[in-house]
């Protein structure tokens, strides 16, 4: 089958649309979760949502909607525990997560459903998505994106410094719950794409990748959404073509592709941070200085071209040189 034929297949078009929308929405919420150092919250909500899916399978209701309801309730519970508890309330969260996963597996068994049916939701089955599901996915994802971008200033302030936000008159608890609910919605949106057990990767990995290179929150958010879209559409396409040779699941492919993005950018980020640290201006300290004994200056004069790291220091520039800081002073160099 040629690429043109593949992309003309209705199920493939549905899958591409779903992948695009979830790929943009998941990192948008993920950025706020990472900002609060709650990177694993998406994973926790995913575990809780397993129970929701199982309830849907047991009762015959749509698993998407039962998962939305249970995930939202779970996310609110997690947020309230976090707000009240010690540190991050991580033990309470763990109790909730494993309760959700165990409950889901148990209820699926009770409903005489096969594990394979549950597995569609655990690891994603984007190519079996129905036209109705695509519409639901697109609408929910659009709401998530709209809120995350539209209320960016408020959500940023609340996550950055809750106490300041409260004194600025923002309803901090409302915004915290809003982020929790958005996270729950995007988990269920992404559950058909990458699956409940991998959903957190799509929320967190693009953010981790984009913050390697960015200095501002806005760039991080925008780049994460772009990377998420590239990873999920790219992963789906890669999986579709690779499946001529072997059985390749789209969900894990998407996650591995976005991890690959992180692995590629990480060394760049390390280098940038290292360079930034070397070039941080020296503080002005009034402690006098010695005249350099002029070692090594027969070969060259320090300057923009000499290759030594040039660091601003008060009103001049120091050249870092074998653990010394040389500053030009008339005919000689001072040790600073």
């Amino acid at each position, binding site marked *: 089958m040629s690429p043109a034929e593949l992309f003309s297949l209705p199920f493939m078009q549905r899958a591409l649309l779903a992948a695009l929308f979830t790929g943009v929405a998941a990192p948008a919420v993920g*950025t706020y979760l*990472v*900002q*609060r*150092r709650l*990177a694993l919250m998406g994973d926790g909500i995913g575990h809780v949502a397993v129970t929701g899916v199982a309830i849907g399978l047991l009762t015959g209701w749509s698993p998407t909607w039962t998962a939305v309801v249970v995930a939202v309730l779970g996310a609110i519970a997690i947020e309230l*525990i976090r707000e*009240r*508890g*010690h*540190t991050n*309330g*991580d*033990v*309470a969260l763990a*109790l909730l997560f494993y309760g959700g996963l165990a409950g889901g597996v148990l209820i699926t068994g009770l409903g005489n459903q096969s594990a394979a049916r549950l597995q569609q939701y655990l690891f994603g089955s984007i190519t079996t998505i129905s036209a109705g599901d695509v519409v639901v996915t697109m609408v929910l994802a659009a709401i998530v994106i709209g809120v995350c971008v*539209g*209320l960016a*200033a*408020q959500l*940023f*302030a609340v*996550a*950055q*410094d*809750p*106490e*300041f*936000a*409260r*004194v*600025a*008159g*923002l309803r901090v608890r409302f915004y915290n719950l809003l982020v929790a609910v958005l996270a729950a919605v995007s988990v269920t949106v992404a559950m058909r794409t990458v699956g409940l057990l991998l959903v957190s990767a799509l929320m967190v990995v693009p*953010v981790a990748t984009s*913050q390697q290179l*960015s*200095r*501002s*929150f*806005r760039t*991080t958010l925008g780049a994460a959404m772009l990377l998420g879209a590239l990873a999920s559409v790219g992963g789906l396409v890669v999986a579709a073509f690779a499946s001529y040779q072997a059985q390749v699941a789209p969900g894990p492919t998407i996650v591995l592709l976005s991890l690959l993005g992180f692995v590629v950018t990480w060394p760049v980020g390390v280098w940038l941070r290292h360079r*930034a640290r070397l070039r*941080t201006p020296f*503080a*002005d300290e009034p402690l006098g200085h010695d005249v350099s004994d002029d070692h090594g200056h027969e070969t060259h004069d320090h300057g923009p071209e000499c290759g030594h790291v040039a660091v601003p220091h008060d009103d001049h520039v120091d050249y870092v040189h074998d653990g010394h800081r040389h500053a030009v002073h008339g005919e000689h160099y001072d040790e600073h």
Partner: protein
Amino acid sequence: MPLTTPDTSVTPIVLRDGAVAIGGRPVLRGIDLTVATGEFVALLGANGSGKSTLVRALTGLRPLTRGDLRLFGVPSGDFDQWQRIGFVPQRSGAASGVPASVREVVSSGRLARRRLLRPLGAVDRRAIDDAIALVGLTERTGDGVGTLSGGQQQRVLIARALAGDPELFFLDEPTAGVDLHHQQVLADALGALKDRGSTVVQVAHELGPLAPLVERVVVMSDGRIAHDGAPADAPGHHDHGHHHDVRRHDHVPHVSSPLERDR
């Protein structure tokens, strides 16, 4: 910085018989404090004497268990004119999990004056630029807050409060971790506020370069006001009063009581 003439008709802070308990333990009690428009008040006291708690109670972050607090004449429960208040917390929240530029953090200071879903207007932008310039960080505007030194981060937090153009400032140890030169920069910035008629309530360990600005000193001791008056009359505040045995959260997970509230 756009000048708003402070409203002199209403007293910014009136607290009568205020008390605060944390986790059931009384921390502050019998606090009577009135701060008039344009006053520059320093709250002094040993660690654990309750000075930060008092600021948190005045900003509404910590509920009063007793007493009556009015901000600008409005009972604290009904108070909603948050754009009149600028708060500089102790430096801790400046860096977070995601990079944020100096400008973005300072922009948060305009939130009390912005409507939902509206982009920053020209007035907002000017206020933000002026606030950053006033603390001397114009050259670092686009840099990540996490890459700044501790003192620079502190100045970012002050710029954030300045950006909202408030009338009443609360500063919790603004000079902690700031070197002497930049303490002077801060003192100049606070002096400019004072000249403008702003009211300033500041928690301090040492007055340092701020000393010439301070016209009134409130010394806290063991949760009560031990002295309230001109700086010259203040007793040495370093060694009297006993230290509270402050219980800090440890970072061991509390399996036995994951849902218990202890704050």
